[in-house]
Every structure is written in structure tokens, then in C-alpha cells.
């Protein structure tokens, strides 16, 4: 999702990261920052060598992305349920300033347990912000376990629809399909768009796929590291 968004969709220029007409993107699920850092480095917002310092004491790259620290990061996230409201503000500002930029907010499925997300959704719909896109990484797994167990989200598409969004559903691993959907926003003029991206957590790494125990894993065995190398080598 982050790859397609940053490589194929966002109108951004690393040489002019504060361009007032750039598209805005907020990784509201800030814990997914590794993917963001890799893309920002690849796009040239900062040197690739910064990636080696991830979470180091003097690194610009922390365990959650910080505005002002990381070029290309629009908002500090990490506390869940904040990004969509900030996105509403950015999108409303675009309308008031008569600017053409779009605002994309990437949310986790567990994150949308937060009531503030639904407050923001009502606000976005009230203002008819069709320059705002909420992308939901729907991998059906949150920290403790399945979203269906922790706090069921279904019928998720109907929820967003009933909150006033135009809803698209897509296989979040299908790059072509994701690109097509993202390039067609707004899905409906006058409405904010929600794109529910069906994904598999840890996709491509058999030990991690849909495995809640892998979620906060930070110590890897040699055999797990070997498995990651094999999996990455397949890409």
C-alpha cells in the first residue's frame, strides 16, 4: 500500500518537500513506519544510509515517524486515531485555500477501534471532502489477535458508507488493482473516499503471515533470519 501510494500516486517532489501544492500523506498507523522510511529514502527525501540508524539514539528515524525529524513526514503519529482528523484539517485547508492537493491517510484496522476515527469520518462527510482518502489496511489482525475477536469491525464497508464515504474494496497486495483504485479518487464527487485494502499481515513470509505472535517481535533466531532472507530474495 505504501509502495503504490508513494511511487505511483502521490504528487510529491523530494527536492521541494514543502511545496504547498504537494499531496499530503499521513501514516496514521505510525507503527508501520519502516515501510514509510524505506519509501521516503528510496524517493530521495533522505539518504538511504539513514535506514541503518533506525531507532538509534541519534537517528532521525524512530519507532514512530516524527514531523520535523523526517523529511517527507507530514505529521507525527504513533498514538492511534489521530491521523484522519489531521487529514480532515489538511483537506479542508486545501478547499479554503483553493489548492488542488489531495490528502491520503493510511489507517490500521485495529486503529479504527478508536472513536475519534469515526468523529473524523463524520466531519469529513459533513464537509464533503472529496480531496480526502482514507486507506484502511484491513489485515484482520491487531495486537492481541483477530480483529473479529478484539472488537469486530464488520460490516466494515457498510460502516464507512453509512458515515458518508464512497467505499472501494481492493486486494491490498494487488499492485495493479490498488494503483487503479487510487488513481480514480475521488470515487464519487463530493464525498470522501475510503479504500478498504484487504491484506495479509506478514504477507510473503510464511512464519509471519497472519501470526499475531509476530506482531511485536523484535528478537529473531538465525533460522527466522534465514527465512526472511529467502522470502525477500523471492521478490
Amino acid at each position, binding site marked *: 500500500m505504501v509502495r503504490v501510494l508513494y511511487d505511483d500516486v502521490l504528487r510529491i517532489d523530494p527536492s521541494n518537500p514543502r511545496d504547498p501544492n504537494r499531496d499530503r500523506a499521513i501514516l496514521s498507523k505510525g507503527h508501520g513506519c519502516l515501510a514509510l522510511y524505506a519509501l521516503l529514502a528510496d524517493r530521495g527525501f533522505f539518504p538511504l544510509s539513514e535506514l541503518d540508524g533506525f531507532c538509534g539514539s541519534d537517528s532521525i528515524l524512530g519507532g514512530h515517524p516524527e514531523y520535523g525529524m523526517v523529511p517527507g513526514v507530514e505529521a*507525527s503519529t504513533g498514538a492511534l486515531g489521530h491521523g484522519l482528523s489531521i487529514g480532515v484539517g489538511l483537506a479542508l*485547508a486545501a478547499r479554503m485555500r483553493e489548492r488542488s492537493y489531495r490528502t491520503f491517510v493510511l489507517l490500521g484496522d485495529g486503529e479504527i477501534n478508536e472513536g*475519534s476515527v469515526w*468523529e473524523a469520518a463524520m466531519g469529513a462527510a459533513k464537509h464533503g471532502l472529496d480531496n480526502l482518502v482514507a486507506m484502511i489496511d484491513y489485515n484482520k489482525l491487531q495486537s492481541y489477535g483477530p480483529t473479529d475477536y478484539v472488537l469486530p469491525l464488520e460490516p466494515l464497508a457498510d460502516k464507512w458508507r453509512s458515515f458518508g464515504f464512497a467505499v472501494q474494496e481492493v486486494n491490498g497486495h494487488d499492485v495493479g488493482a490498488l494503483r487503479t483504485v487510487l488513481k480514480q479518487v475521488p470515487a464519487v464527487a463530493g464525498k470522501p473516499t475510503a479504500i478498504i485494502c484487504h491484506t495479509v499481515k506478514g504477507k510473503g513470509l510464511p512464519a509471519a503471515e497472519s501470526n499475531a505472535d509476530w506482531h511485536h517481535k523484535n528478537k529473531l533466531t538465525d533460522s527466522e533470519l534465514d527465512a526472511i532472507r529467502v522470502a525477500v530474495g523471492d521478490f
Partner: protein
Amino acid sequence: MRNTAMNMVHKLAARDERVLYIGSDPGAGTLRAMSKEFPKRHLIEGISEAHIIGMSAGLAMEGFVPYVNTIATFLTRRCYEQVAVDLCLHNLPVRLIANGGGLVYAPLGPTHQAIEDIAIMRALPNMTVICPCDADEAARMMEQTLDWKGPIYIRLGKGGDAIVSKAEHGFEIGKAILMRSSGDVLMVTTGIMLQRALAAADLLAAQGIRAGILHMHTVKPLDTAALLQAIRGTRLLVTLEEHVPSGGLGSAVAEALIDKLGSGLPAMLRLSLPDRFMHNYGSQDSLLKKHGLSASAIATSIEHALAASHTPSPQLHST
């Protein structure tokens, strides 16, 4: 005070296109004139404070100066994480206009009584905390908010508070106002405790006790220099606040003195609300009186504190 602050938002909006008013679900007709003159900059966003703070952050990132307005408890307790992360961490120029600071909503009970708001707001890095004493000062204060860097929490009183501030004192964020020169006692006040301090000082004067008053309208950043200057030669330092004893003006003053003076601290009396939720209703005035914050009770507390102090006048220096 509230009407004045609201009208100032309209006035500032007329002068500066960055100014927005964002209310949750305020009283009918709030800033109606502004809503007619600047409908796109008068936003009513529903009872969704967490969202409103985040949305204000987004607008401020794009150069707007949002004035967010609702009842103090909902602007602090309800959306504390949004205030901390979205506003303070990003250091954005959003102004939180808190209706009913302290016990203004006394009859509505503890859910509406903002008795710890100063503490929790001043704990946040980058936050500025201002408590004007009357409508005139609120107007002067609002003039200063337009270009202040970073978020501001503005604790408003009830309205109709006696006008005691003076135009010649001016207003500068972070600069305390010496309302009466120091004497045996120095009272440090914020918000509407100034009126009570002035009355208490008159009562004390009748007893032959000279009491100075330093009005600390800005609790953060605290004007430590003015404080150190004002306590010179005093026997007793008294802080007055419509707030729990933890983390408010009294705490801020004590922290500043410890940091600056270390040893040789002045005798200090912190007069505040008790460390508990109020289960009484009535009025702001009646609850303040009940908790020893009427002018006469303040004067009596000070007299007792002076009488209990058998130590010679401490040598206070602002070194």
C-alpha cells in the same frame, strides 16, 4: 469575559484571514455576526473534541490560526492526547478558548468544573497557559494571541467579573503585572482571584498589614523574574488559585523559587481548592467562599500565617 473573547475572535478574523473559529456545539448564536460575515471561517463541528483538536492541527499546519472553543473540561480532559500530540508535539498555533475555567459551572457539578486544567495544560511542553482576570484584560490578551508561536490554553472566567485590570498596565504574554507594590505579604494571583486579592489587601491594610499583588495572568511561561523581584522584602508569599493544589499556580511558583533560590525559600502559603472533586453546587462565588477563597477568608488565612510565623523576616534575594 467570554463574550469579549468571542467578539475578539471576530475582530481578529476581520483583520487576518488566517483566523478561524471552531466550536463544538456552543450555545445558539455564538459568534452569529462572524458566521454571517465570514461563514467559511466559522466552523461548528459537533461534540467531537478529539476530532476537532486534530482537525485544528491540520488547519494550523496549513497556516491557519484556529480558535477552538468549548467548555474547559471538554477542551482538556476529553481530548488530552490530541492536545499533547497534535498541538503541542507539533507546536502549532491553535488557541484553546476554555469556557468556564474553575468553578464557573458550579451548579452543573464535577463533570463541568475545571479544577485541574491549569495543571494538565502546563505540564505539556510548548503549551502556554493564560488566565485573564476580567473582560478588559481578555481583550488585551486576545490581541496578543494572533502571532504567538505554539498553542495557547486560555482559561476564561464567568463573565461579568469586576473590571480591575488597567489599560496602562498593558498586556504581554508571559509578563506578570504588579498590581500593588510588595509589602509584608505578596499575593500572587491568576484569573479572577485577582479581584479577591485586591479586596483582601484592603482588609489587610485595615489591620496594618501591607500586601502586594502580582497578577500572574500567564501561568506558563511563568514570569520568574517578576516573581523574584516582587518577593524582595516580603515576609510571606501567598498564591491564590481557583484550582486544586497540585500543579497549578502555587506549584508553578514553588517550582520556580526552588529552581532559582534553592535554599532560603520564603515562607509560603498556597491557598487553593482542596484536592478533591466538588460535590457541592450553588454558585462559583459560594463554592469559593466555602473553600476559603473569599476576600475575607483570604485575609484571615494570611493574618493567621503571619501570626504563626515567629521567624524573623527572611532575607529574600532575587539572585
